[in-house]
């Protein structure tokens, strides 16, 4: 635990150091990576450690985003408090959903959360407090003055999101090693056996879903911070799909790969843009290529590294050992 804490602090320093030496675009992408890291982490917590899958984490992010924006815009609460509220309220919302979800498995939860992802963002258009299609502006405020004149807004976002991501990952890696983590893994392995061992499977599933939702809410709030507005269009169905892809590519039950998934999610639109620009910025290509890449990646990952790159590497290493030995 001590060692891991030091590791995370060291990682934080390295990231800050890098953040100081690259251009604004990269800094901004760094912030996005941090946001996706949290979001993917929340799916890994849910799927990899309790065997449930959610296709609606984009909608939970939207929930958190709206909570944060409402806190700041309507109640003028400080930013950090808005984030805490986002995580808390989304967690509670997820807990309620999870209460229905706990009674079911695989396809039921998948379908229900898919319904959430398709429907929740469009709800925003129907309640005036949510600002319709334009959404709500979230004033991120200026970076504290003592960080210096030329400390940019993006760098400020980068700091906040990275700090949040580090704390989240540290917390996640601890909880997954704790008694809870072991219980969830047992659940995933064999629900009936876990039940026989006296695990209250329903309660554990609700807990896992609520915690996962809370993290998704936090990620949503951070995402809104980096784009300064929350609107339905920021949380399309494709976001939920992308998160699942990120989690599968990372290795759905291994927290170590989580940054890889996040980096890929940030790179994909960039690849799509550069391809599209070669084809004369055709609207068709710009609007469909990211989806195609994400989906193709998802399918390839399921087919070729179904249990994550970690397992694949492990196998390769074993093979090599077998050959040389």
């Amino acid at each position, binding site marked *: 635990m001590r060692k891991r804490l030091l590791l995370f602090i060291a990682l934080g320093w390295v990231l800050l150091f890098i953040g100081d030496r690259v251009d604004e675009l990269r800094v901004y992408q760094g912030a996005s990576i941090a946001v996706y890291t949290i979001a993917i982490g929340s799916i890994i917590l849910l799927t990899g450690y309790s065997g449930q899958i959610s296709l609606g984490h984009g909608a939970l992010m939207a929930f958190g985003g709206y909570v944060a924006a409402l806190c700041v815009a309507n109640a003028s609460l400080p930013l950090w408090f808005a984030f805490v509220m986002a995580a808390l309220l989304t967690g509670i919302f997820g807990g309620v959903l999870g209460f229905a979800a706990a009674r079911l498995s695989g396809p039921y939860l998948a379908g229900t959360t898919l319904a959430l992802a398709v429907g929740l963002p469009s709800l925003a258009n129907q309640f005036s407090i949510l600002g319709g299609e334009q959404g709500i502006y979230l004033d991120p405020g200026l970076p504290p003055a003592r960080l210096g004149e030329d400390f940019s807004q993006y760098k400020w976002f980068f700091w906040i999101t990275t700090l949040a991501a580090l704390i989240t990952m540290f917390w996640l890696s601890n909880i997954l090693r704790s008694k809870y983590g072991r219980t969830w893994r047992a659940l995933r392995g064999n629900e009936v056996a876990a039940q026989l061992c006296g695990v209250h499977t329903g309660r554990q599933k609700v807990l896992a879903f609520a915690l996962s939702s809370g993290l998704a809410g936090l990620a949503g709030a951070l995402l809104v911070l980096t784009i300064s507005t929350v609107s339905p269009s920021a949380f399309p169905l494709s976001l939920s799909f992308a998160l699942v892809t990120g989690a599968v590519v990372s290795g759905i039950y291994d927290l170590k790969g989580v940054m890889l998934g996040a980096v890929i999610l940030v790179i994909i639109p960039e690849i799509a843009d550069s391809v599209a620009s070669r084809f004369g910025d055709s609207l068709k290509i710009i609007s469909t*290529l990211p*989806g195609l890449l994400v989906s193709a990646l998802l399918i390839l990952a399921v087919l070729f590294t179904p249990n994550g790159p970690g397992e694949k590497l492990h196998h390769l290493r074993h093979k090599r050992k077998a050959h040389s030995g």
Partner: protein
Amino acid sequence: MYKFISSLLIGLSLGAIYSLMSISLVLVWRSTRVVNFAQAGQAIVSTYIAYEVVNRTGSFWLAFIVAILAGALLGAIVDRYFMRPLFKRVTTGPIVAIAPVVATLGLLGILRAIVGFIWGVELKPIAAPVSLDGYSLGSEVLPFAPYNALVILIVAIVLIVLSLLFQKTNLGLSLRASAFSPEIARLSGVRVNEIRTLGWAIAGAAGAIAGILATPTSYLSPNSLDILLVFGFAAAVIGGLESMVGAVVGGLVLGLGVTFVSNYVSTSLIFPTAFVFLIVILLVRPSGIVAGKRSRRA
């Protein structure tokens, strides 16, 4: 009174479309234990093909037939060349439980992207074969239009054909036997793999009909059928996910519920209504309103 009758009829025609989508999900679920989220993608492909046929020939009915065939073919291809290799490859590790969901999701994304590439992302209309203007009774114009009546008629015919197929023919018996117990079906000489692919084809055809029937009253875009998928899924869950009768009942209940809420309460509540329906059913009657025997923890 007019409002009531008209809500009833509109609800039926909406519910009829949900029923078809729901049937296609149930058929695949029963035979393969997969909720085929790609069904919306398959239906969008067949509906775009129908759009192309309408554009070139002007015939809705030709397009309708072509869409059914395309939907069936696509369903068969997805099972034979996508699901089967997937099940062969992915056999170990924690991913097994979620691989089918994840794979059909990926396929949905790919199919949407493909139609986006070919036809663009702008909204496209398909003209209805009969009028979309409501019937008038005296001075009153009902929202219920000839097209809604046509939808009810077509779905009724499809349902009759399907129930005859499933209840009265050897093929139907093979389909049911393979779904309920592949091993006993196989020992009885049923070519289970082929039958399963055929089941996917029938499901694809049902989804294709739902897609083309849903489009004239709205428009076509690469994700215009996502909502239909969600409603079809909700209907299937209401019906218990195992039973085709349940799927139809679930579709109609949902269609009527949604229409009455939107006519009597608020149009903005369509989606929340469906979602609440889904959650309530899951909480109070997890095996659906048409009681199924199997547990849903399977």
